[in-house]
């Protein structure tokens, strides 16, 4: 690294951000930016990995071989997303094993939505439609994140997520054309997932402390409430096309705002989940920890073998 003075570097960094250009791993970047990005990318990676569990829960029971293949491929994609994202975090000096440790010890978060259980096969469809839909709303702007490796990972991820969302919606369409019991399953799943999906955009702007800095650094490009509104507006006609009712009596079009009004979100529930008291927090972390610990001897053996091979070479 050249001996440019730090204030100069900082100016260069800010200039890059201002011009909407990308920061690359080789570039100087402020420590705060590095930490923020590592945390953001790691939490995103953790979400992909933990997100494998609620959907993976239905792979062996999927009621048609075609749906089984679609679901298995989707969960595999989530593992893949986790992998790119950990790699992106590594370009900032993070270590994958360390991030995993932070996940299973509860020191780093993952998306709270995965602390709800999947209770029927309809949940697979609703997760595709609503949860992936909300994730896409959150993530599309991240394809323009100022951090290059993350932005590029997000482009690929968003493409795949859109595909998953369409598959989820298509499953629901098929189920709604099926039996009465299937329609009831879909409606029940929508009832359970709608509000948690709205919570995926995070607390209201007034209570979101990091938003300002993140927007200045262009690692975040819209406020939580903006994105939430966009998601609601998008979902209403989709629900109508499906023939399901969104479980919010206050939901209606506001001609003046040219947006849908919607009822108050139960932020207490959200806070309880953040505190670890969701329906599946303990289960998700215990599952991940067990997989990690059960795999320890395998990773050790691989390392021992690699060391032997090096010795032989």
């Amino acid at each position, binding site marked *: 690294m050249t001996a440019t003075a730090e204030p100069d570097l900082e100016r260069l960094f800010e200039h890059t951000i201002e011009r909407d250009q990308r920061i690359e791993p080789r570039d100087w970047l402020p420590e705060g930016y590095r930490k923020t990005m590592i945390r953001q990318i790691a939490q995103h990676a953790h979400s992909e990995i933990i997100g494998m569990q609620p959907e993976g829960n239905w792979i*062996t029971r999927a009621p048609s*071989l075609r749906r089984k293949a679609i679901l298995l491929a989707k969960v595999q994609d989530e593992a893949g997303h986790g992998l790119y994202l950990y790699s992106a975090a590594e370009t900032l000096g993070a270590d994958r094993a360390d991030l995993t440790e932070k996940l299973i010890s509860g020191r780093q978060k993952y998306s709270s939505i995965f602390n709800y259980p999947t209770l029927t096969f309809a949940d697979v469809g609703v997760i595709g439609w609503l949860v992936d839909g909300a994730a896409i709303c959150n993530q599309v702007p991240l394809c323009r994140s100022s951090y290059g490796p993350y932005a590029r990972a997000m482009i690929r991820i968003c493409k795949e997520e859109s595909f998953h969302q369409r598959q989820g919606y298509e499953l629901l369409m098929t189920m709604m054309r099926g039996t009465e019991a299937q329609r009831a399953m879909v409606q029940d799943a929508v009832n359970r997932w709608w509000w948690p999906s709205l919570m995926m955009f995070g607390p209201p702007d007034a209570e979101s402390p990091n938003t300002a800095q993140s927007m200045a650094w262009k690692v975040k490009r819209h406020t939580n409430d903006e994105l939430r509104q966009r998601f609601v507006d998008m979902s209403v006609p989709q629900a109508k096309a499906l023939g399901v009712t969104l479980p919010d009596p206050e939901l209606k079009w506001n001609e003046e705002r040219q947006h849908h009004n919607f009822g108050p979100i139960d932020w207490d529930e959200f806070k309880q989940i953040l505190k670890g008291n969701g329906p599946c927090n303990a289960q998700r972390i215990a599952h991940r920890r067990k997989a990690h610990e059960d795999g320890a001897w395998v990773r050790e053996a691989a390392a021992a073998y690699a060391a032997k091979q090096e010795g032989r070479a």
Partner: protein
Amino acid sequence: GADLAAYCLMLGDDALIMSHRLQQWCSHAPELEDELAIANIALDLLGQARLLLARAGKADGSERSEDSYAFFREERDFRNVRMVELVNGDFAATMARLLTFSVWRLALLQRLESSRDPVLAAIAAKGVKEVTYHREYAANWVVRLGDGTELSHQRMQAGFDAVWPLYDELFVVHPVERRLAGIAADSDGLRSEVDDVLTQVLTAATLTRPEDSAGKVVGLVSGMAGRDGVHTEDMGYLLAELQSVARAHPEATW
């Protein structure tokens, strides 16, 4: 005819049930790279199963769908070898079975590429590419674990010891296969071909072929085994899970 359908079910059920066991690894693998690889193998086998079950429904003129076979058959009508249905065990046991299964299936599919039945030949050609990769993946792990630490060596050996009692069954030529000469994969020399590959991998992995130590066999029931629809006690639980949603909604479309 009926024989061709039965034969398609044999190969299809092997893939379907093996895929199911691999699906159960989802979110439990030792590394993310293995999540991806195992899901991939499970997907390939699921794809093979779908083609073969669909082919069975054409072959006997019943027009039964792949889903009808997968979700609405009784255990007694599944024709997979018993090796694929055993509960997974640890990662070493999973790799021991995957290697054994893949080496066998690859040899089988390679022979099937020259089947007189063009559909089977095409399915086999596609499968050969896929299973070649499965074999490589499993062999890599067998060698790394066999020649890794003392613990991993023990577990890898135990994995083979557990799978080996079901090895003989892979090479029993079923009357259906005999009647399908020219269509079914030729079984001549199959065992020695599989034996050779396995011996190579086991040697590289510093492992012992189990028959040289234990030599036990999971015997037949009144002369019957998996190909005759007589399975192990693990199979019922597997099918209960596999079929639960489909059977709860027999009138549904998905």
